[in-house]
Every structure is written in structure tokens, then in C-alpha cells.
């Protein structure tokens, strides 16, 4: 009944011609920056100020407190930050970093090569992707206080890209963090000391965190803002009231509203919708359990891809705010091949493939049944529940019965995913900026593990493994690109999973506020008011 209603809704909506892309181009790059002013960001809970904490919002705060080694500029290219300059040896196994001489921690101590090496080591051990980002680091040389030579055991392509955000490489003062054994349980996390553009000025757990300009920041003229307040609000009604009443000047849409509500808020006079245009992306994917019949058959997987009209998900269910995925890499990724089109919607091809594969329709019109696990309401229904129901309705048309199995919370889903106990699973893996960190993990044989977000689909191909490995150790970006183009072609043919739609990050910001939506969208030191604030 519900599915029927959904299909009717979709039909009506598509007839009404809703398939426009309402995203506007990035506004506001013009306009002179004004120094000063406060921004209140609509946040969720900030449980800790540990720079390696898993919560997204914690990273948004610590990215202002700590500086990273390098950063992304407005053209999404790697630019100097704590490292004024760097050299990579021809072998790709030695990196030499020259640190800014005037860089100081908030306590006045200079940022030295010792601190950088210490930070690499801490991240390697304690960050969720530490091993993938900096695993090959073997040893250091310290020619002087501002120069660090890093020796790798093998060339490692993603090293610089991984060092572009304090979320991944916060450069931490060794003299403060270095004395205790257990990094994750340190008192220093209560009042972190970094070398970033802001310092913590006030914090009340589960209420707000307020940060203030670091007046002696080593980058001239930055930051622009005097103060940023991260206000925790839990209730959606309260969030929306606050957004309407200009109590927040910056918010991520997905924490406040569904895609269907964005249009309404775009009409609020002081608000502006800014899409994220950086390099870190993600996609919602339909993972197939490649071990199990009939999904171990490539033709069946391709048939499912042909059977789902993904443009309907993006254009109708999401009001045009998402894009159907065209490749295993999100379109925002540096190594995405823009020539790829992805699978078209073609029911005949889907049916033909299923017939060929030896799954004829039975008397009830169905060929076989598959279960589908996903995280249940109320967690982001746009990304889980709605696509799941749409998939069930779509696949029914080609004779595949889908048994929906909504699971409670991240943890409920993660347990089933880790046990490989599913036929199909809706998953949301981010690409973590570099495919060697965030993408290869889903496909390579030696990452088939009993842990969510590993290669839980069980796909294994020696050639794919080889290409991913070559691309990871290749320092030259053009050569890496070629390799990733190859692997995208193979995966599109093999379809170990169906890449449903790329997930955008959309922000509402005050129209007088310039919000840097490039890079990793965390460079809030260059966020500024275009008009002087009271």
C-alpha cells in the first residue's frame, strides 16, 4: 500500500516537472572581507575536544584550534599552511617539510619538527584511518627545528592529501600531549592547545563551545572572525525556529531538515543555500553480498543496476539536491572520470539479463527474494528509508521481491553488516578525500573483514587489488589518475555494489556571510562577513 502511494507520488511529481537543479552557483566570493564579527553555528553535541574524536562536529571545532601541515586552497589544490614548502624525492619515499618559522602554539612555544613527527605518530596509532593515511612512515630526520625529513617504507600517494585537514592531521604540541601514555584519555583534551587560528574561550558540555580569534596567529590577517559559537540544539522544531530567527548564521541542512524542506527555507530572506564544492565526498550505495546466490552472479547485479531509475531518487525523492552516482568514486573526487555515465534505467535489459542468468519468473511473477538492511527512521530517512522503499518497488517490477529490514541505529546496522548477514545493504561510505584511504577499502581482498565499512560485500579480484596497490604507491598524480580511471571501468562492469547517488553537503548561511565551501569545508579562518557587524 505504502509503496503504491510512493509510486503514484513519484509519477505525479515527475509530471509536474520538478526535475530541476535548484542549486545556485557559489555566491559571495566577491565582496571585501570585513574583519571581526561573530558567527553562531547550529551544531549537534560536542562531547569532547579530543582532535581525534569520531564525532563530525568535534572535528569542526578542533580544525580551528589546530593547524594542519598543508591545506586546500579555493581551487582545491594543495597549498602551504604550517609547512611553508616541501620537497618529494624522485623515489617518492622521502618527504622534506619546511615549517613556517613564525608558527607558534597558543602557549607561545614554537611549532617544531619534533611536534610534527610526534603528531604523525599519534595519528598513525589513534586515528580511525591513521594506518591508511600515514602507515608507510618509517623514520624521521631532524636537520633543524623547522625542517623534518620523513622516510617512507614505500612510496605513498595519499600522504599530502591526507595532511590537508586538521581533522586528519592536527599538529599537536609534544610538550603538552607527549608526557602521558594514553593519548585518548588525556586531560589536555579539556582545553586543547594548538597552533590554529582560534582558541577555546568557553565551553559548557552539551550546551555550547565558543572559540575566539587567536591574535598571534602565524598567518597574517587571519582569521577574519572574532568569535564562533557552536550551539547545540537537538530538537528539529527548535533548530528551525532558530534558523528562521537568525539565531544561527550557519547550519548544515541535513541536521535541520529533509530535502523536501529546503525550498521553503531558501525563501527566508536572510538565508542563502551554499553547496559544498570541495574534494571530500560520499555516496549512498547498495551493497550486494557477492558471496551469496544469486548475487554472486555478475548478470544479476547488473540487472539490478538497470532496474533502478536512480534519477527518480535524486530528482523526485530528493527534490534535485542529490545526483545519481556515475562511478565508484563520487563526482567530487579528484580521480573521478567525468566521461563515465553510469548505468541507464532499462527494464528490458534488466529482465533479459535475469532470464539469461537462469532466473525465470515463477507463477507469482517473482524470480527470487532478497533482504535489504538499512538504518531505520528517524535517522536521515532521505538517505535510508526512502531509497530502500523505492528500491523495493523498483525491483518488484523485474520480479525481485525485496524484504525490507530496517535496523535500529548505526550500531544495529553495523552489527549485521559486520556479520555479512544480508543480501543487500544500504551503506554510506565516505571517500575520505583519497581513494587509497576511503575507496579501495571497500573492494580489496585483504580488507574482507567482520567489521562495518570494510569490504563486507566480499568482492575479490586480483587485478583490482593490483591496480589499487599501484595507485596507492604512485607519487605522480597523473599516473594515479590513469590507474583510478582503469579501476572505475572494471568496477562498473563487475558491479560489486550499486552506487545510488552522491551525497552532497549543503549549508545554509547568512547571505552576508562568506562561507568557504571548498577543500574540506573546514577552513573557517577565511570565513568572513561581507558587511560590518554590530
Amino acid at each position: 500500500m505504502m509503496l503504491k502511494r510512493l509510486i503514484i507520488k513519484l509519477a505525479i511529481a515527475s509530471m509536474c516537472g520538478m526535475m530541476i537543479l535548484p542549486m545556485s552557483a557559489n555566491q559571495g566570493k566577491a565582496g571585501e572581507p570585513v574583519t571581526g564579527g561573530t558567527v553562531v553555528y547550529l551544531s549537534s553535541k560536542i562531547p569532547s575536544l579530543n582532535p581525534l574524536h569520531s564525532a563530525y562536529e568535534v572535528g569542526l571545532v578542533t580544525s580551528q584550534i589546530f593547524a594542519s601541515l598543508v591545506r586546500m586552497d579555493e581551487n582545491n589544490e594543495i597549498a602551504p599552511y604550517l609547512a611553508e614548502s616541501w620537497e618529494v624525492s624522485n623515489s617518492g619515499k622521502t618527504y622534506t617539510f619546511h615549517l613556517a618559522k613564525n608558527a607558534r602554539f597558543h602557549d607561545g612555544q614554537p611549532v617544531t619538527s619534533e611536534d610534527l613527527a610526534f603528531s604523525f605518530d599519534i595519528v598513525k596509532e589513534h586515528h580511525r584511518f591513521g594506518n591508511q593515511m600515514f602507515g608507510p612512515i618509517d623514520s624521521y630526520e631532524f636537520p633543524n627545528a623547522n625542517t623534518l625529513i620523513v622516510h617512507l617504507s614505500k612510496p605513498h600517494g595519499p600522504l599530502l592529501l591526507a595532511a590537508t585537514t586538521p581533522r586528519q592531521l592536527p599538529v599537536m604540541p609534544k610538550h603538552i600531549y607527549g608526557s602521558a601514555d594514553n593519548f585518548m584519555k588525556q586531560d589536555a583534551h579539556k582545553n586543547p592547545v594548538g597552533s590554529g587560528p582560534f582558541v577555546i574561550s568557553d565551553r559548557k558540555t552539551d550546551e555550547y563551545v565558543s572559540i575566539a580569534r587567536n591574535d598571534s596567529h602565524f598567518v597574517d590577517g587571519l582569521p577574519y572572525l572574532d568569535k564562533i559559537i557552536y550551539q547545540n540544539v537537538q530538537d528539529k522544531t527548535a533548530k528551525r525556529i532558530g534558523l528562521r530567527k537568525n539565531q544561527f548564521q550557519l547550519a548544515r541542512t541535513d541536521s535541520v531538515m529533509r530535502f523536501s524542506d529546503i525550498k521553503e527555507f531558501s525563501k527566508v530572506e536572510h538565508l542563502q543555500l551554499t553547496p559544498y564544492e570541495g574534494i571530500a565526498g560520499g555516496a549512498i550505495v547498495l551493497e550486494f553480498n557477492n558471496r551469496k546466490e544469486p548475487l554472486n552472479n555478475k548478470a544479476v547485479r547488473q540487472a539490478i543496476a538497470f532496474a533502478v531509475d536512480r534519477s527518480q531518487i535524486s530528482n523526485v525523492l530528493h527534490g534535485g539536491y542529490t545526483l545519481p552516482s556515475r562511478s565508484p568514486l563520487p563526482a567530487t573526487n579528484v580521480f573521478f572520470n567525468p566521461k563515465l555515465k553510469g548505468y541507464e534505467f532499462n527494464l528490458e535489459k534488466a529482465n533479459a539479463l535475469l532470464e539469461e542468468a537462469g532466473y525465470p519468473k515463477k507463477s507469482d511473477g517473482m524470480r527470487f527474494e532478497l533482504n535489504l538492511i538499512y538504518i531505520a527512521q528517524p535517522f536521515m530517512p532521505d538517505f535510508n528509508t526512502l531509497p530502500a522503499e523505492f528500491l523495493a518497488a523498483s525491483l518488484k517490477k523485474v520480479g525481485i521481491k525485496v524484504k525490507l529490514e530496517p535496523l535500529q541505529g548505526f550500531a544495529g546496522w553495523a552489527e549485521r553488516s559486520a556479520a555479512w548477514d544480508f543480501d543487500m545493504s544500504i551503506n554510506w561510505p565516505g571517500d575520505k578525500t583519497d581513494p587509497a584511504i576511503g575507496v579501495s577499502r571497500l573492494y580489496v581482498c585483504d580488507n574482507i573483514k567482520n567489521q562495518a565499512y570494510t569490504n563486507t560485500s566480499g568482492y575479490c579480484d586480483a587485478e583490482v587489488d593490483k591496480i589499487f596497490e599501484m595507485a596507492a604507491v604512485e607519487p605522480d598524480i597523473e599516473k594515479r589518475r590513469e590507474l583510478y580511471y582503469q579501476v572505475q571501468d572494471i568496477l562498473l562492469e563487475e558491479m560489486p555494489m550499486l552506487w545510488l547517488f552522491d551525497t552532497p553537503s549543503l549549508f545554509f548561511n547568512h547571505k552576508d556571510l562568506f562561507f568557504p565551501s571548498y577543500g574540506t569545508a573546514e577552513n573557517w579562518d577565511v570565513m568572513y562577513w561581507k558587511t560590518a557587524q554590530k
Partner: protein
Amino acid sequence: MMQAVIQRVFLGIVLILGVIVLNFFLLQAAPGDVVDAMLAEAGGGDPELAARLRQSYGLDQPVYIQLIKYLGQVCIGDLGYSFYYDEPVATLILSHLPTTLMLTLSALILAVLFGTLFGVYAAIKPKGFFSNFVTVFSLFGYATPVFWLGMIVLLVFALYLPWFPAFGIRSIPEPDHPFDRALDIIHHLVLPTFTLAVLFLANYSRISRASMLDVLGADYIRTARTKGLSEPKVILKHALKNASLPVVTLAGLQLAQVFSGAVLVETVFSLPGVGPLLYESIVRRDFPVILGVLFGAATTTIVANIITDLVYKWMDPRIQSIT
């Protein structure tokens, strides 16, 4: 008397231990653990790191060993460490407690006070308009889901009539003068307290109306009136004292319900209380915090029940033994 108190306290301790053990096993039955939730939130992570984290949190050990360790900790007053907040559980709960206490106590006092007043007034004129109004209002309050009421209150008094703030317990920045700061907090607490109080007011007005009607028909009230006592004296001194026994019982028993109502109200109004802390910890599978909060709630309920018994005895000398 003393012996009875000791006996109740002993039983209470046994009960609390039982609650801890039960909660512990209930949590084990929930799918996934804190490491799953952390990694899922961050879009995955290194499986070796996950294993290391489980080891450092002690999650790799058999359940009964975890339980024995936990009980041992609790006995020496250590509620454990929150993996999600990077803080000791006791510190965490204590920092969230003032908000919850302010909210629940003020709501409970308001509910008892106005509930009893409404009930008594309705009982004096059982056929009047006000009496009917109290009955209908009570039913409304009793039947309304708290989160819905909270949402409506938000929309009306924070958006359309912007008299009160929609979230938080204080303004940022806070006013400088301590007096203004107190006013600021009260201003933030008006809507949540009202929402929570309405729900419980219903119970008190109904109970006190019914028991007042009962008492007003009793012989000793007639005696009091024939003695020539003034009507207020009859009502307040003779009738109300007896009629309020059920109200006191209810207030004690309801403390637990008020607390669970506070979980929702605090979430709707984004108050930094124990409620959202519990909710968040359930989502994150942060077991030490969940166990700590439930331990605190169970203890409070049991202590409240013991106190109710004692107050009951003090108010009604007919009750000789409290066991």
C-alpha cells in the same frame, strides 16, 4: 521504627544491585557496541584500531567478567569512564544533574501545588463550570504525548509569540550580574517546566478532587461544621490534611515518571540535563553512562519511596508499622 528504616534501606540496596545486573544484561542484548557506533559515525575505520579500542575499553572480555568488574567499581563509588565524552561517568552525570533537578523539582512542585488547588476547588463546587473544566483539562494533560505538547508550546511561545527562547538553559554570552543570570535561566526554564508540569498536574487535580469529595462527606467534617468552625478552617485544616494523603503517595511514586518525562522535555528544549545524556548514550552504546544514569534513577526512586513511607506515617498516625 529505626529497625524498620534499616530494613527498608537494606532491601533498597538489594533492589539496586538487582537493577544494575538486569540493566547490564539488557544492554548486552542490544545490537552493536560503542566501537561500532563510533566507527559508523565517522564513516568507518581501521579494523585493527577497532580491535585495539575494544581491548582498551575491556569489551573483549566475557560478559560475566565485565559485570563483576563493574559491580566492584560501583561498590567503591566509581561509575566508570565514558568512551564518547572522554570523561568519568560520575563527573558527567553530576554536571548534567542541576538542570534536571531544577526542571523536575519545579515542575513537580507546580504540579502538586496547582493540581491540589484545582482539585480542592473543584471538589467544593462539584457541579460548577470550573469542576468540569478541571476534569477535561486533566484528561487532556493526561492523554497528551509530552513531545507533542513541547513542540506546540515551542511553536506558539517561541516562534509566533517570541516571548521565550526555543532552546538551551542560558543565553550566550551570559549576563554579568548573578541576579540577571538567575533570571536568564528562569526565563529559559519557563516553557519546559510548564510542559512537564501540565502532564502531571492532571494526575494531582484528579486525585485530590476525588479524595476531597470523599473526605467532605465524612462524619468528622460534619462534626467540624456543627462545632461552628469557619468553612476555610474546615476545608484546609480538617479535610485537606486527610485528602492529601493520596497526593503525597502519588508524588513519591511519580518521581520516576517525572524523570522519564524530563528525558523527553529536555530533548525537545535542548536542555543540558541527564535526559539527553541518557538518550545520546543509548544511541552511541556508551554503556557506562547508561548504567550510571539508570543506577542514579533507580536509587532516587527507591529513596523517594522510603521517604514517602516515612512522610506518610508522619501525616497519618493511624499507620503504625511502615513495613
